[in-house]
């Protein structure tokens, strides 16, 4: 659906790598071009009309994001460069000052590098302990396993809402409830969730949320850090500079602006933020429920066609998202990706930045298909035809 909105989809290309990044609709590209062409001024310098328009558009995106994730206050929405920067700010700006040696952070083995490495660094720096919530036989997180993993030292649970390899939807609301009963913070990596499912931060009751615009039809280089206002007030800015300070005279007299400006130092990715506003308007028009329903239908269609193919080893048969991970028996995942590339089909091969997942799944590398609403049943038919013919794969993979 909505294929006509995407310039690239007018070409002969099948794009199945939406977990890495999504395609961009023309309205978003036009909105950014409009900024660069017609009012390319800086933000927060509203002494002249052009700049005033920038402020208006920039802050309108903040309002759109607030409503999109159902946050309580505008100040809770901070623009960053993406999920990775948001997670690093949460770990280094908040938890580095809050946690002490011996405190425990719970992750899972299927987390993306950006929700692992900042915690690893903090562990090395101040001696926190990293533990993992065990995955069940489907590689899912169950509330029972969360209960079992919590110890008296657990202070944070940090996990993805939907993982980028298995595609499982985690029971975040239940996890938050359980965590908060024991004064444990919950950090939600929403990179693979916010583009596909309605996320209501108040209902989920997460303390922090990170996500990126580019995986939801928006521009690269823009992301969001959401935090409950009372927590964000204690998040120390990692980056200092213009736009975030009130005044300064000497090292003892530095006064910072209020939220969210305090956490947005320097000139931000203005075109990206404005483009992101248009992205949210676009997704709102389609409706996230329709997007999710469409992805599930496409996934079921794809899975039903993959199951009978004997040489396909499916890693995540069950999953309520558009992510399908598999291997072609005896063929290295990258060779499968090169083979499909010869037919203009874009898929991802590798470990998908979830490098500790192999300890749970027992497979180092996989082929991943990640669907979005603009994919079609015909595209899946094309893929299935190419994957069904083992001899053809072997013949054409080099």
């Amino acid at each position: 659906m909505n294929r006509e909105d995407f310039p690239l989809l007018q070409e002969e290309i099948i794009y199945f790598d939406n977990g890495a990044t999504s395609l961009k609709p023309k309205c978003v590209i036009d909105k950014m071009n409009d900024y660069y062409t017609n009012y390319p001024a800086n933000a927060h310098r509203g002494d002249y009309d052009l700049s005033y328009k920038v402020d208006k558009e920039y802050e309108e995106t903040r309002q759109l994001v607030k409503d999109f994730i159902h946050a309580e206050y505008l100040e809770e929405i901070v623009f960053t460069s993406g999920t990775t920067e948001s997670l690093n700010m949460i770990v280094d700006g908040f938890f580095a000052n809050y946690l002490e040696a011996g405190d425990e952070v719970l992750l899972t083995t299927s987390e993306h590098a950006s929700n692992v490495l900042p915690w690893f660094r903090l562990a090395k720096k101040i001696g926190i302990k990293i533990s993992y919530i065990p995955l069940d036989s489907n590689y899912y997180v169950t509330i029972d396993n969360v209960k079992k993993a919590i110890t008296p030292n657990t202070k944070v649970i940090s996990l993805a809402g939907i993982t980028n390899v298995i595609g499982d939807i985690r029971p975040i609301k239940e996890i938050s409830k359980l965590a908060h009963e024991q004064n444990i913070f919950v950090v939600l990596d929403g990179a693979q969730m916010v583009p596909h499912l309605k996320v209501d931060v108040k209902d989920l009751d997460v303390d922090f949320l990170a996500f990126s615009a580019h995986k939801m039809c928006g521009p690269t280089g823009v992301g969001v850090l959401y935090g409950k206002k009372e927590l964000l007030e204690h998040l120390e800015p990692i980056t200092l500079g213009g736009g975030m300070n009130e005044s300064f005279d000497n090292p003892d007299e530095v006064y910072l602006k209020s939220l969210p400006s305090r956490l947005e130092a320097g000139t931000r990715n203005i075109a990206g933020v404005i483009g992101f506003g248009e992205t949210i308007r676009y997704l709102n028009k389609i409706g996230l429920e329709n997007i999710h329903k469409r992805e599930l239908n496409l996934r079921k269609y794809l899975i039903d066609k993959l199951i009978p193919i004997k040489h396909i080893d499916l890693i995540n048969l069950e999953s309520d998202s558009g992510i399908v991970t598999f291997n072609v028996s005896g063929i290295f995942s990258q060779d499968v990706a090169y083979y499909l590339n010869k037919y203009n089909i874009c898929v991802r091969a590798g470990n998908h930045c979830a490098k500790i997942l192999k300890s749970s799944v027992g497979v180092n590398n996989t082929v991943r298909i990640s669907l979005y609403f603009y994919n079609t049943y015909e595209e899946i038919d094309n893929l299935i035809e190419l994957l069904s013919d083992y001899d053809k794969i072997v013949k054409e993979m080099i």
Partner: protein
Amino acid sequence: MNNEEIRNIIMENYLHPKNRDLPHEDYQKYNTRNESCIDNIDLYIKWNKNIIEDITFSGEACAVSISSTSIMIKNLIGKNANEALDYIHEFYQMTNGEEYNKELLKDAVVYDSISKQGNRKVCANLPLKGIERAILDHLK
């Protein structure tokens, strides 16, 4: 060589590579991996003074990387350090689309056209990068 012959040599070396997963006590280990993809190979090299007496390998990689490793191993065993560096130089010349010595490279010329495939060039070069480090260390 026609395309069918090229393909056969690559596939034969991919499916039945030389010296994969052999015991390698007394060998020096060199890991080689590509930043842009997932190829990851451990090379094990044994020297007899200045001569490469043996190379074995283990790891996971695509058909081009594995076959290139196998062909490289066959062609480098028995060479001295400088001869091996010459071979590696000619291989890079080939994968960069420059003039090169076909006789010296023997069956490695199957990667002649890889210079036109940017995303597979790194796969063919992968084992050479690892063994080059091993040789330079040996010459130190």
